[in-house]
């Protein structure tokens, strides 16, 4: 059984035909060819598949696609913006991850960045701060130190208005 599901994906309307229980993760990676969202476990534990649905970070391996009908879904591919010069322009959190060494092997990075973006937009979602905001994103490479530094750098830059967080 498949059904039509319509949602907003990175700002554009998208309709897919899928089994209602298909994992949003698979729909993004296969039906939408957006492979930036990664699968590390499929059991809601690693956070590599994190996307933002209606403003909140969620694990896309835990979401049956029928549940995003009518929702706004944002994946890592939607973070870049088009600069005035026609060049794509990184989100400041992406820049911070490059600068501070927040990405090593990179497999956790898209999910980590999406969780961080949700936090930057809504710091009250994690009263415990950056560590709590990222507790659902496992990284085996970094020991998290440089990831924290990346997020803090982005927060500082946001405060000084160096870039606009969307």
């Amino acid at each position, binding site marked *: 059984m498949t059904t039509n599901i319509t949602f907003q994906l990175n700002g554009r309307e998208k309709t897919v035909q899928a089994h209602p229980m298909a994992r949003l993760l698979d729909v993004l990676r296969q039906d939408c060819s957006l492979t930036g*969202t990664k699968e590390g476990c499929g059991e809601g534990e690693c956070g590599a598949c994190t996307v933002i649905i209606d403003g909140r970070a969620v694990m896309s391996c835990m979401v049956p696609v029928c549940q995003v009908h009518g929702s706004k879904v944002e994946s890592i591919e939607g973070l870049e913006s088009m600069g005035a010069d026609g060049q794509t322009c990184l989100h400041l959190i992406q820049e911070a991850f490059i600068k501070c060494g927040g990405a*090593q*092997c990179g497999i956790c990075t898209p999910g980590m960045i999406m969780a961080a973006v949700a936090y930057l937009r809504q710091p009250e979602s994690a009263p415990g701060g950056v*560590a709590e905001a990222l507790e*659902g994103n496992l990284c085996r*490479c*970094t*020991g998290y*130190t*440089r990831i924290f530094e990346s997020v803090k750098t982005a927060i500082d830059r946001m405060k000084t208005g160096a870039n606009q967080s969307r």
Partner: protein
Amino acid sequence: MTPSNPTYQYVGKSVLRNEGRNKVTGRAVYVDDIATPGALYAKTIRSTVACGRIKDIQFGPGIPWDEFTVVDVRDIPHNVVELIKADQPVLCDGVVRHREEPILLIAHPDKGMVENAAREIKITYEVEPAILEIGPGAVQTEYLIVEGDVDAAFASSDIVFEETYQTGSQEHVYIEPNGFIAEWQGDRIVLHGSLQCPYYVVKAVKMCFGIEEKQVEVIQETTGGGFGGKEEFPNVVALHAALLAKKSGKPVRLIYDRQEDMACSTKRHPSVSRVKIGVSRDGVLKALDFDFQIDAGAYVTLSPVVLSRGVLHAGGCYRWPAARIRGRSFTTNSPPYGAFRGFGAPQSLFATECAINAVADRLGMDPAEFRRKNFLHKGDKMPTGQVLDVEPNLDAMLDRVIAMSGWAEKRASMKKGSGRGVGLATILHGTGFTGSGEVYLQSRVALAGRADGKVDILVGSTEIGQGTETIFRQIAAEALRLPMEQVEFHKIRTSAVPNSGPTVASRTCSVVGRLVQRAAEQMFEKLDGKSVAEYVKANGSLRTETQFEPRPGLKWDDATYKGSAYGAYSWMCNVAEVQVDPVTATPKVETIFATVDIGTLINPTLAYGQVEGGVAQAVGWATSEKVTLRDGVMANCQMTNYIIPTSVDAPDIQLEFMPTPDPFGAFGAKGVGEMPMDGPAPAVTAAIGHAINKTISAIPATPEDLIS
């Protein structure tokens, strides 16, 4: 602070990661991201018993088996996974030697159908008793190193200390599971994979199919973590994918899910170490007798080399007038254990460091002062007979870590059993392959100038997160005196890049980097002031190649296990600060302080990242990462039940680098990646022991162990 040579343009600078932009935008392509229209999805059917014989295989009803490609042992030209010893079959040959042993391979265009079909294959066995622990089984490999008159040295010791230490297995938990995509193009096989050692795969495929090296093309895709777990294990995955692709004539995707990956892939060797130490009353070490045993699992794989590194590090960073070190690996009915960051050294050093702390305790000495009396210095002899030709600088490193951590005040203020504690461990780690290993490898690298004026770095050394692409570009650009933008890292496909050896043993930056440096220096001379574009235009091509040359004076004898085990050593002093919850007995590692000597830091940000990541893994190994074995296989094979540190659990990590450069490493670099795995565990257990006033002699030290 990180010193850097002001005369260098790139070396010592935190140049941004080469592939960083692709990784933060989601554009980096990992093997599972490659679209393969028309490909088959594959699955491996595995044994459900640890030891026995296959009696019968039934293909159940309700599955359209004619639509499936099924590979069994009869489809394999040469049923061996080529590595050190030709004992591991590609598919089980009828005799099951461990659980999760591959028996059949199936593939179909519909992934869901593959899952259903896998459930309908019923295999029955004649079960035989399994050996699931170190001891009763056959000894696979054995080493013995003796230096000095050990028995006499013990006889003249005031105190003789003896204890047994155990370390558990550890799963790598690279966040990207293993995977390959295989496709035959005529008589040539193309393999895309997640891997550390492309030429290991080439060799395994070549031998299994009986084909020429040029018929095998291995392409490394962006690799989501390795830590040793993608050193030798990918050979098996690649062979399985290649067999299915051969039989079906179609491209085949064999991508493991997390549970399969955890259950069947290699892990850190569990170990048991019996340590006997003789010491004088005033705290001078006299003798060491070390019996090191590891569980190798069902096949040899890399266990002899892991055992070797464990044995060679067992003496730690101390002067022993006499030492006897014996190492044995045992065959069991567990899936083969394999390479994991540190490669045997963390296991033996855990025992050494625990014992050193215990002896200091017995003597009533501060463990820092006890160490200071016994540290290795330039000119001292190690158990292999190697004479240290550089001063390790351990006294200064120890002083610094003690100051950083507030060691003295904390030890004084935290009473034993108060729930808080600090612990110390000081370790060394040999750079690169053991003794003759590097000579045997004969690693090669090449640099090639292009018509557009750029230079390609051609190596088989993989980027697995540690920064290979970036540091090699830094090294090459520095030696070529070219802007870094003009130096590119060539994608690894074995038809295009030479074999620079495996990406293991902390050898990439120091040893292979040195080859890159030399190739770049040769190219600089060749250019003789011309630009790359000019030279290529005038001469048609520009290429330099270098091959490993042993450092002068380095001798190693495999037969006697004597000589210079490693050309260079890295050093690290660790202090752990721990709190143990009085209600739940849960240890919380709050901070790891460390001073680190990895020689020159080619890229400080990357170096910090490597050490911090290793420390976090070591802390996990020491405390929460318990591989629960049932039938010799990992029963807790989910991320939910195998507990690695989250962002909230990971300790605060305070590092200071104190480099003593190695003149034979790239711009003075020594090994980096593995060493941080060695010291934190014994530092943590010492701290826990202090906090709860108990001796900890086994890891992981879980709350279940600590509460009683």
